[in-house]
């Protein structure tokens, strides 16, 4: 039987570190990458630069998918077709997030969402941010539209879409 007296494990408080009660070593990793975009994501980003969202279609299962991939993961075969999608969609699910990625507190919430893209098969969404909206009014099923960066600021990145905003 597990009893507290046999348990090992030495807990420290943040004070122990601040007051230098324990010795420490630090390291910042030098870990940089240039990930090859490849055929599918390369095209996706090039099209984003053009202000378009592109997906792919598998004729076997008849799914239109986004983000694009060169294979259909369910049929395990190459995809058959590139398909331009609309830059509108509906909110599949969302959150009102008050902390940044590094846990810093935010005053105004970020609104991450899974957005089902019009023109893709039902349920085919991408993760992005919603803005220009009263956070209280965001709801599942809400219709949204991409707000693009000006053409000359687009770089071929998911952030070429600044965010999504509601359409009435």
């Amino acid at each position, binding site marked *: 039987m597990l009893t507290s007296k046999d348990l090992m494990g030495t807990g420290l408080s943040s004070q122990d570190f601040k007051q230098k009660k324990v010795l420490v*070593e630090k*390291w910042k*990793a*030098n*870990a*940089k*990458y*240039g*990930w*090859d*975009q*490849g*055929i*599918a*994501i*390369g095209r996706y980003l090039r099209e984003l630069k053009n202000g378009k969202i592109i997906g792919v279609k598998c004729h076997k299962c008849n799914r239109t998918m986004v983000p694009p*991939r*060169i*294979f259909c*993961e*369910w*049929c*395990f075969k190459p995809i058959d077709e590139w398909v331009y999608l609309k830059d509108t969609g509906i909110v599949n699910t969302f959150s009102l997030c008050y902390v940044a990625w590094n846990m810093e507190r935010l005053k105004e919430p970020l609104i991450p969402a899974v957005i089902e893209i019009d023109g893709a098969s039902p349920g085919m969404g991408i993760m992005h941010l919603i803005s220009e909206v009263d956070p209280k009014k965001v709801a599942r099923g809400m219709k949204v539209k991409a707000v693009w960066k000006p053409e000359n600021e687009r770089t071929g990145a998911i952030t070429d879409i600044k965010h999504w905003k509601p359409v009435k």
Partner: protein
Amino acid sequence: MSDRIAIIGIGATQFRSISPDLSYKELMFEAAVKAYEDAGINPRKDVDVFVTCAEDYIEGTSIFDEYTPDQLGAALRPMHTISQEGLTGLASVYLQLRTGEFGIGVVEAHSKASNMLTPDGIAACALDPIYNRPLNINHHAIAGLEMHRFMYETGITEDQCAKVVIKNRKNALENPFAAYGASLTLKDVNQSECVACPCCELHIAQPADGAVVIVLATEAKAKALSKKPIWIKGIGWINCTPTLESRDWAKATYCEKAAEMAYKMAGIKQPRKEIDFAEVDDTFSYKELQHLAAMKLGCGCEMGKWIDNGVTELNGEFPVNPSGGSLGLGHLYDASGLARVYMAVKQLRREAGKLQVRKANTALVQAWRSLPTTSGAVAILSN
């Protein structure tokens, strides 16, 4: 329990110093498609278990496991990652099939080495963070220290190590998969830029991109599906200590113990006589000799004589790395072991073309996880 396990399909991309036209997913997909076609199977229906071998820092993604299933046909199927050498991944599929619960298993490993912009900075993160890393010494120092001690204890010379490089890169000239085929002289190798003396640039396998997929099956499945099953007669995998302080510095003990395990399983008592050729780790020139010695193919100094006398040449009595090894193919990180399996299977099936060795019935395949580890695996394959 199922007794014998065979390799029934192999697939690999070519190995190249860069592969900018394909994402890692696409690279994996290419190798997988080839392997499944080779095995004559549909992964969505026929494969019971999948394993991929990957490390987060090498991929640049935490929990890289997430991104592995789709391109292998493994979505919503039993699949897991082994953060280990590809050959150890092969062992993991081998064990799964041996339980008798599964019929066909797949192991994948790949390298997008070129996507690491700071490979040395990344390798530094593998060193102990309190005893070694704060010294701020390049990790190749470990190879320099080991090579020096190995030469000191065995009497092996720098020239003999250089001859390993010459042999392997020459073999690679005939291998369409290889990235680093070359015709080199002793002078070329010995006068290449010094990295960590006595280990100079050409003594070190240069990185390459590529993916390898291997399909394994139980005996019943293998006999039904394959005309040329290659049997896994023995397999062993061992870790020694990860701490630089308490490891061996001349001997590859991990390799010795893994070989003992594999030999025991395969019933091999006289490896030199019972094995026809070997594909062994040569991520550093001296490692080929050190590993051969560890696997009881002869003592260290004897391995020096072997290389002098051409015993391990393609047409020698005991060909070693006829594929070109990592020095010739390129260093594929954790895919290295599976690349060697791929090349050994080609030999055992007599499909190795110009690289075909005369006698190819039993192969020895060995892998090491490279710096700074003492972790490796050994497999005995037979046709």
